[in-house]
């Protein structure tokens, strides 16, 4: 069966056509073709071909197998640096995007913050399967949350503001903001119901104070920490320790 699938694929049939031809589930066709490609890759020991997902035709949930090979290779830890990308002329270029999920906000001024982010193919495809629409068709949006003196993870915010973003946006200068305020920024999609669904979020960030405050909201936490009344400071740290495997237990 596997040989048959590979043979038909090499004759140029789509996976869907092969599934119809052989009267087997498309998952089985996909799987067989993928596996064969994987074996080929290992034999040839060539670097995985990077493919831009933006240019891919995503008619259905059937994705091309090249990307799957790349991901599978990545898990096998034989890979290239994510910063290695070649332009059309074969020279190195800065990658347009990275296949990771992150968001980072940095202070520009007491009234403005720069936020940049990335969303992985894995998450994009999962959302496409969830909402049965291509990633590119899901409307993108950005949310500003004022979480001053609140725990972001509680889901509460003092106020929030959501606005739509153009497609293919991966950074934003957020302004105007208020000084001396704790913000969290989120990138996400607007669902059919109009609800904002966050995909990546920044760490909480304090905008700087822009004027004297007398005794403000930090005075008491500073005092408690100074006199050892708490085990760890109740203050935001803009340089948290990062772990590559932070989710692995």
């Amino acid at each position, binding site marked *: 069966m596997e040989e048959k699938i590979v043979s038909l694929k090499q004759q140029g049939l789509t996976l869907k056509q092969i599934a119809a031809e052989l009267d087997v589930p498309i998952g089985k066709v996909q799987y067989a073709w993928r596996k064969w490609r994987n074996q080929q890759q290992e034999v040839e020991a060539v670097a995985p071909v990077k493919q831009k997902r933006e240019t891919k035709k995503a008619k259905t949930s059937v994705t091309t197998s090249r990307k799957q090979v790349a991901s599978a290779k990545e898990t096998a830890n034989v890979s290239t640096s994510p910063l290695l990308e070649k332009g059309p002329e074969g020279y190195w270029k800065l990658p347009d995007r990275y296949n990771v999920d992150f968001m980072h906000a940095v202070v520009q*001024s007491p009234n403005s913050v720069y936020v940049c982010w990335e969303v992985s193919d894995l998450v994009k495809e999962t959302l496409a399967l969830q909402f049965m629409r291509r990633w590119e068709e899901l409307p993108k949006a950005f949310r500003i949350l004022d979480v001053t003196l609140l725990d972001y993870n509680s889901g509460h915010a003092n106020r929030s503001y959501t606005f739509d973003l153009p497609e293919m946006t991966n950074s934003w200068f957020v302004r105007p903001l208020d000084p001396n305020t704790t913000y969290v920024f989120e990138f996400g999609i607007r669902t059919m119901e109009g609800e904002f669904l966050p995909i990546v979020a920044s760490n909480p960030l304090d905008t700087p104070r822009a004027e004297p405050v007398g005794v403000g909201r930090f005075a008491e936490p500073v005092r408690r920490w100074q006199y050892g009344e708490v085990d760890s400071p109740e203050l935001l740290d803009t340089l948290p320790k990062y772990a590559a495997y932070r989710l692995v237990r």
Partner: protein
Amino acid sequence: MKPGYFSLVLHAHLPYVRHEEKHRLEERWVYEAISETYLPILWQVDRLKRPLHWTVSISPPVVEMLADPLIQDRYVEHLDDMLELIALELSEDRTDEETATLHFYRQRYHEKKNTFLHWNKNLNEAFRTYREAGYIDMVTCTATHGFNPHLFTEQAARAEIRTGLNCFERHYGFRPTGIWLPECAYTPGVDRILYEEGIRYTFVDEHALLDADPTPEKGIGAPVYSPHGVALFPRDQIISGKIWSSMIGYPGHPDYREFYRDLAYDRDWDYIQSFMHPEGIRFDTGLKMHRITGDTDQKDFYVREWAEHQIENHATDFAKTLESHLEAHGAQTFPPFLVTAPFDAELFGHWWFEGPEFLGKVAERLAEFGIETITPALFLERHFKDLQTVHVSMNTWGRKGYGEVWINERNEWMLRHLHMMEMQLVKDVADYRNQSEATNRALKQLIRHYVLAVSSDWAFILDGQTTAQYAAERFREHTRLFAELETALYQDGVSEQLLHDHYAAYPFLQDEDIDIDSFLSPHDYYVTIEREKKKSAILVLTPEYHGHIVGGLGRRVVDEIEARADDGEVVYVLTPYHNELPEYERQGNIHVYRVRPTSPFLEHVMNQVATQNIAYVKLVHELSKRVSFKVIHHFDWMTIPAARELAQSLAIPLYSTMLSFEATRNPHGHGGLFDAIHRIENSVFSASERVYVGEEISIHDLKQWYNVSENVNTCLPLETSPYGQESMKKNVK
């Protein structure tokens, strides 16, 4: 002595602009700094020969370039060229004023050469000697002047700090307790790292203290402690402004030398050509023949005696200003009033030609006036008990006081790549640390490439758009080298030659300066070293597992997973987070991850399900780098999107258990949610190897609603593995 103190801090920094090939214009930045700033400042220290209590900060790129034989030799050649040009000028028929200035320059350039050769061409020796003699104190800066508030990880900030201190210690034989934060940029948390790395004081701009919380009782009249105990010395803008401002300060006086009028632009090309760039580029010679004159384009010739006269006047004026300022705050005690004046060293001499002489004269005047100059280190020794602890928010000494110079529309494109390098370094250190001598050296070289890329100078130059192309190219080059070396590391291609080539491109820092562990996270150490290595595992996604058993599904999941675990399989169970249960639990062969959705409190069911699925795939993305999964098994419709995507991206077979279906639960259902669930359910029949359905479900009936194919079975008895033996075996790695 009068009450109160004055503290002068000079920060010498240039980006690392050493290039093997000759005639790079940027290398002239080093020559100019040596000629106009470093040597003239050293002359003043040597002239006064007593403890001046100046603090000189010298950044690692400057230290390394001063110690570099290539730059040292080229600088001597540069001095010879200058002396030749001066001789040529003197042979021409110039005015008396010009001739007098040229004689002044001739003597000065001879002195530069003598001093430079006296210190064996290495000015680090000079600074070190004067520091050891007690004339000056010294501190350093982070490795490449990276802008701390915009770094992504603690590790990057720590590496910059630790590497900078290591480099400085190698050249200067001691580890300073103070540091110059690049751009005086403070951000909450950097003080914790500084403290842990042995740093007890640094410098900030005055609004850092004026806007601190609580507002410091002494204003900017005393340093404060940051929450983690690092003393922050504030720049006094009024006093500093007298010195740095070309508008309100001394440097704008008409008798001082004009910076923007260079001899190179006043001579015919044929005449000056042999002293210019071989490709025909005209650049400043450093011979500036005019004085500021006034607010006019008609500049008069420089008269050295007039300038010297002004230096005396201004030094006296400064001492008087400082005296009255200190007297006005004379009542302050515990600690006494302190004026801190930190500057870019290159302001003195390079921008303000007469600056170094002014500083020397000020030192003399202050001694005469009985004003005590103090180093921050000595101030802390005396008054460490008297400082208030406050919260300081992010701020810098840059334009408008915050981050605008280093993040704006002209330079923001760099940031994500820097973040990516940081993340990669953390991962690479976790994965490759101590694997071999070669991988350790490769990791150090990767850190070297990163720190060279993260230098705040590139963002600064792109902001100013002066030599923007150079800055952008340097950033790209270091990123490319990082990418190429990292790829070699991944593909086991690190060789002696490769490491040599990468180092030789920019021979900045010794390997001993770079500590791989500055990028290590203890958690990653646990994951990569201590956590047991497992055989390949089954990945299960289920909306219910333990403690959440509502109906048949929960029971079936538990029974099936336990049956597989009893068979000796390792099972990873991913299930939604539940308040009373731990986020992670291990039961023999079963690992249970209770996963928090990416966002709590969404209103609509489908959206809640989506945030749960996003959280699953993010977790598995990481897990799959440490655990090899051979099969994925999901329960119920809610986990279908994540399970399908993971099966595809991991290239492993997908198995489904559907104890009920939307259409069987709700045969008359309709509407948006019903349709959406139905479509998701329908997708498993084509995506899964096998779909197991509840015993009470008639497969025949199911065909009314779903595209059921022959891969559908009723659930197997628990003792039978639901996974095809074929695929299980083949996928075992």
